[in-house]
């Protein structure tokens, strides 16, 4: 993967992070302000992305949505990463009953297409942002558990793990001090890819009405609101949020690949 592309991806991710933080303050219009008189205006100098059916500025809504989407994704991924990697590494290294039971839970979870699980969870638990985060975290767990477990299984008989034990490292120190740091590059890549996927997931749930509720701006909700107007030619209501969504996910995926190249210890000098 060439360096310019990697750099561009990392810059894009940084930009998204900045927007998530300062978005609400830098937008030219209030994302929630409705003005029916100027509804469904095409993109112009005043409204860069046009307005929606209630006269709200779409640009502002798209930018502010960054905070919600990224917030959900980051929380969900962080949660599943911490729980999943630790559990997976412990299973891979310690084995035994822990491994067997965790394996069964993971198998059961992966017996369902994960989007459907998220749907069912949010439907059951209720339509709040916290529940979306929880549902997304749960369906992400298996990946981390399996990844950490497999990577640890490969490494646990490695010479340097044996050497660490000869050098006085007990089981937990081996897991945290030797194995997880060696797993870190792979895990970082997984996280970045998962962030993209978590955003897609949250947007998908919102699109079908199970996620963030209007009038809160979120890319999936915005796209859903704009879908009916597509047929009548007012494409900007749905397309801009959709593009923002795609762009963000694409940036995270590319950044994940860039990270993988960066963190390979073989490139350190």
């Amino acid at each position, binding site marked *: 993967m060439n360096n310019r592309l990697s750099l561009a991806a990392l810059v894009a991710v940084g930009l998204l992070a900045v927007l998530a933080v300062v978005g609400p303050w830098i937008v030219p219009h209030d994302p929630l302000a409705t003005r029916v008189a100027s509804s469904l205006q095409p993109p112009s100098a005043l409204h860069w992305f046009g307005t929606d059916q209630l006269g709200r500025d779409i640009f502002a809504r798209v930018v502010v949505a960054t905070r919600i989407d990224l917030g959900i994704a980051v929380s969900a991924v962080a949660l599943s990463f911490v729980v999943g990697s630790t559990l997976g590494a412990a299973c891979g290294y310690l084995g035994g009953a822990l491994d067997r039971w965790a394996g069964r839970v993971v198998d059961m979870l992966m017996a369902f297409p994960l989007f459907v699980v998220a749907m069912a969870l949010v439907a059951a638990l209720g339509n709040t942002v916290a529940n979306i985060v929880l549902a997304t975290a749960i369906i992400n767990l298996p990946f981390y558990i399996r990844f950490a477990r497999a990577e640890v299984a490969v490494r646990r008989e*490695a*010479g*340097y793990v*044996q*050497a*660490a*034990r*000869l*050098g*006085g*490292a*007990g*089981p937990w*120190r081996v897991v945290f001090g*030797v194995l997880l*740091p*060696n797993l870190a590059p792979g895990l970082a890549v997984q996280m970045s890819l998962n962030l993209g996927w978590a955003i897609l997931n949250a947007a998908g749930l919102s699109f079908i009405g199970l996620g963030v509720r209007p009038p809160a701006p979120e890319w999936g909700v915005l796209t859903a609101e704009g879908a009916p107007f597509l047929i009548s030619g007012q494409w900007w209501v749905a397309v801009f949020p959709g593009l923002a969504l795609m762009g963000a996910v694409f940036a995270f995926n590319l950044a994940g690949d860039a990270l993988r190249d960066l963190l390979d*210890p*073989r490139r*350190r*000098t």
Partner: protein
Amino acid sequence: MNLLDVAGLAVRFGPVDAVADVTFTLARGETLGLVGASGSGKSVTALAIMGLVVPAAGTVTLQGRPAMVFQNARRALNPTRSVGRQIADVLRRHQGLDRGAARAAAIDLLARVGLADPARRAAAFPFELSGGMCQRVMIALALATRPALLIADEPTTGLDTTVQATILDLMAALARERGAGTILITHDLALAAERCDRIAVMDRGRIVEVATPAALFADAQATATRALLAGLPRAGMMPPRAPAGPPLMVAQGIAKLYPVARRWFARPSFLHAVDGVDLTLGQGGATGLVGESGCGKSTLAAVLARLIDPTAGRIDFAGHDIAAVPARRAPRAPWRPRLQMVVQDAVDSLDPRLTVAQAVAAPLRRLTGLSGREVQARVAEILDRVQLSPELHGRLPHQLSGGQQARVGIARALAPRPGLVILDEPTASLDAALQAAVLGLLDDLRRDLGLGYLLISHDLDVVRRLCDRVMVMYLGRIVEAGPTADIFARPRHPYTAGLIAAMPQIPPARRARPHLAGEAPSPIDPPGHGCAFAGRCPAVQALCRQAAPPLAGAGDGRQVACHFPI
């Protein structure tokens, strides 16, 4: 008319000259050795002869077809196709046979290359066969093309010494049968000297010397040749018999069994990795443990180092019963600093994220109560002793050569100042010259620091150079033990004799050596009665199949487990 004429051959990979101006000939029925250190261009030359790479210059003229036998045979076979079908593929292509005839001919070929039960083996997949068997399959594949020239690329890599000899004999016999020429590629000059009519030495892509083995050993001209010669074992180079100090480790009745899953209703099976071993290691002494791959020596080493738990047995070390502590708790035991191990395979034995200094410091920090500054001092001192210059201390493993990585592993094990060091194949992946250097270093360290060694190796030569006592292991049991010089001069167990006979001789002799046939049986559910070696023993008698011989004293510090020792 020569069989093969190579003139001015040159092969370029990008800006690099892998092979430059290579010229040699081969007559029908002749065996030529192509010898050199890794990277000298031997394999690339072979690939050019095979037509698998396009030369930048020069010509290759061959009367007939070439066939190549690659190293690491298992990886060179299609993993999802049975070996019989792979051979049949070649037969149908080169001999125009139809499916049924090809299948039968494939089974014949497998028998010709010495596979027992060829009909059953033909349906097997490569992962189900041992390394030696896969190598035979490769030879069968080569034969099926009816070649005029057989090229063998490091055919003995990864094989036990006994199997190596049989494979090379097989290739020589088959080549003779067909009147084909052979090119033997190897980095082992001794091996080439034994098997080849002439040897061409390569260095950095060029041929630097061509001569008969006798001429080469008598009077080598090129520097590269002399370097190769220097790396060879020299007869008579054995350490003086140092008086062994008081016992440092006493192990009794060590057994390690692994359960093997079977069908639901059958009795559980066990893999007897270690099947009842007693040993005593004295302070300051060096004991070698030899055996073929799969005999259990690495498992025994891991048990003695307390990385894994024995199924049974007692180990006394420096006044502690260390077998009583589970392996899980061993890292924090008080005796941990005094019992260390240099782990196998230098490449994977270093944490890729730690620099040399960090890797050596880590055990010091956890095992000793030294202050930060003291740790640094000790690290510098031990790295100096293993001759790793200061500019290497900040490097990461992937920036080090194989020899340097091996030294770091040694330094790391020696840093806590142990009394006993277990070395598991410390020179396995190293070239002959590097091997000599590392062994020399280990010997010096032992004398300077008063260490005791337990050296695990399948290579008898390594053991002979470093150890004053030797134990021979077969299928999880010790079959012979005693002082190194005595055992090598007068082995008393047939297996030991077979292992020693399989070693190449220096200076090389072209006489045929007797050696062991077949391969070691599986350690799963070994025969409950009778000597484990009975199946391969050239001197087997009726009693041998009925009762297992115990390991008994045979005078003069020697022990043998044989009913009819030599």
